[in-house]
């Protein structure tokens, strides 16, 4: 019976790709159905599978075929346990992946196969606390954000982030701008942010950037210039800064850092030794910071603007 369940799953999946496995899937289904309905499974399916496996193995190695044949009950039970165990662990990993962004669980940024498949590789600890900072650099806790000014999710996180750090004098917050290059003018927005920082006006410029993402996307530098005026920046100096591209090295620095850290989507947060990818509200920021399980604020997708392959210049 156990073997029939395993066989049903395996052959059902294989049957998607090759018609020759569909008959086995049907037989396994019949066997499972009969057993579930408390009728004996007399299809002989388990015997067929045993013969198929041992005959193939004996062609490769007579001794191996003999060993499997003699101990078939044990071998099939062993693989069935392995199968169900790995299915259970995979389900748990999937839960962790969707709940916490890493299939190893909320506390981990270790390697996860799902992350690798989706391009979301293991996150490493940031190398330094450079960036657009807020708070006391000597504070015991550091919250680092890799965020993109044109990213919807980075914007979504702003409210919770603001509320969180407003009440945490023990937290030193650092924004490392990480433009998602598939967004129009995302790179220029980061240049503009550093140009604003030159004038000491990044704090006023930041909310305008997030509140006018559509302007940035559609108008580019012209739109950024208008926003700079609204933030009371010196327009001439701002435009000169943008035209000279002197903040480009900074943009490249944080892009490169983000690549080294393994950032695969924005926003990505690091609070001491924990990481989170996706927007958080204030409650979940608190949980994130205190080491409790938390949830990113999205239901239908993974809640991050992806950094596409080859995005880094």
């Amino acid at each position: 019976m156990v073997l029939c369940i395993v066989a049903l799953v395996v052959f059902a999946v294989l049957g998607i790709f090759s018609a020759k496995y569909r008959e086995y899937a049907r037989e396994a289904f019949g066997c499972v159905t009969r057993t579930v309905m408390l009728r004996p499974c007399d299809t002989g399916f388990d015997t067929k599978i045993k013969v198929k496996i041992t005959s193939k193995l004996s062609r490769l190695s007579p001794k191996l075929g003999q060993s499997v044949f003699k101990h078939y009950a044990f071998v099939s039970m062993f693989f069935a346990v392995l199968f169900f165990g790995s299915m259970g662990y995979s389900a748990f990993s999937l839960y962790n992946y969707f709940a916490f962004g890493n299939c190893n669980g909320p506390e981990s940024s270790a390697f996860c196969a799902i992350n690798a498949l989706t391009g979301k590789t293991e996150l490493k600890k940031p190398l330094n606390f450079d960036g657009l900072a807020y708070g006391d650099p000597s504070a015991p806790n550091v919250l680092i954000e890799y965020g993109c000014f044109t990213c919807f999710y980075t914007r979504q996180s702003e409210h919770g982030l603001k509320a969180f750090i407003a009440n945490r004098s023990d937290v030193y917050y650092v924004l490392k701008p990480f433009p998602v290059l598939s967004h129009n003018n995302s790179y220029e927005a980061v240049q503009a942010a550093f140009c604003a920082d030159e004038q000491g006006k990044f704090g006023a410029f930041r909310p305008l950037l997030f509140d006018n993402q559509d302007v940035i996307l559609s108008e580019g530098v012209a739109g950024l210039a208008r926003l700079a005026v609204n933030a009371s920046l010196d327009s001439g100096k701002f435009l000169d800064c943008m035209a000279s591209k002197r903040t480009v090295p900074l943009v490249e620095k944080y892009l490169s850092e983000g690549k080294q850290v393994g950032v695969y989507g924005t926003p990505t947060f690091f609070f001491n030794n924990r990481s989170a990818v996706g927007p958080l509200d204030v409650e979940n920021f608190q949980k994130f910071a205190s080491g409790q399980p938390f949830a990113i604020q999205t239901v239908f997708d993974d809640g991050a603007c992806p950094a596409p392959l080859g995005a880094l210049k």
Partner: protein
Amino acid sequence: MIDVRKDFPLTQKVVYFDNACTTLKPQQVIDAVVGYYKDFPGCAVRSQHRLAKRAHKEFEAARVRIARFVDAKPEEVIFTKNTTEALNLAFSSIARKGKAVTSVMEHHSVLLPLRKNFSQIEYVKPDLKGDFAEQAWLEAVGGASVVATHLVNNTISTSPPLHAIVKAARESNALVVVDAAQGVPHKKVSFRKGGFDLMAFSGHKMLGPTGIGCLIAREEVQKEMKEFMVGGGTVETVSLEGQAFFSNVHRFEAGIQDYAGGIGLAAACDYLDKVGLEKVALHEKAVADALDKRLTELGVEVIGSKNRGGLVLFNVPGVEPHEVELLLDELAAVAVRAGAFCAMPALAHLGYPKGAVRASCYLYNSLQEVDRFADAVKQIKALSGR
């Protein structure tokens, strides 16, 4: 040794040792069957156009050829679907009841219709090898109204002492019904000389098509038999008040018959006649003896008496019979059958209630196939580690 393998192209792809279940078909039989459908697919007897007339002519000619094959009269040949239907027809139709005598070695197609129609049945048992003592039959047949037995057994291909059984049955005025499904394909059988009253066999076990069989019934016995299945083709006249059945074999052949099957069976009879059944019997015995020898050398348990025909029953130690069956197919494209072969009491009596593996030979099997079979059995035995 016979060499007819060219007439059976499938023998190039498969080592076919499941002939007791059904046989391969030569092109001559296939052509005969196709010929009916292609050239004269008419409604014999009922219609009078040229196709129907030809169908009738060929079908009745087939009846004559089949009758000749088993040394019976055409008037004694009743076409059925198979041996099972023939035996059901026999036991349901004969008027006499009373005690029936049969053996534990019979096929279910003998036992079950007997049980359905007779409340008193005595079973004769052979020894544990399957050999019957004549005396056991003689003691049982006394007072019987019907004796039903096999010509050749389908599990170990032994035969009961038919001559003595028929003689004893005559003395008791008992009808002798013979299951000849495994006999007619493999040796020359004379219905007339055998002294049987009713004899059943199938076409598909003798190179013929499936869906056709025969009940050979002596005309005197036919008079005792009531109709089994009735309908069109069995009656001369029908009115609202009653009907008049045919007095000949047609009253047992209801509905449109399997004309293609009958014609194909006749072609199979012709083929076997051409090869010579005596040669067939010797050939398959030689192949079966070679199988027996190779299996014994491998330490495989061969079951049953050595007084057997072209069939070997065996078990591989440490491997279930159905596993052997599947492994032979998987490893070497060897076709055998495993289980109880529709003869559960027989296998239980021989001491193998879980069944065994049966390799049954026929005229197209060869000694080279025996080698391939033996090599595969050796591999299977190695799997069990014994």
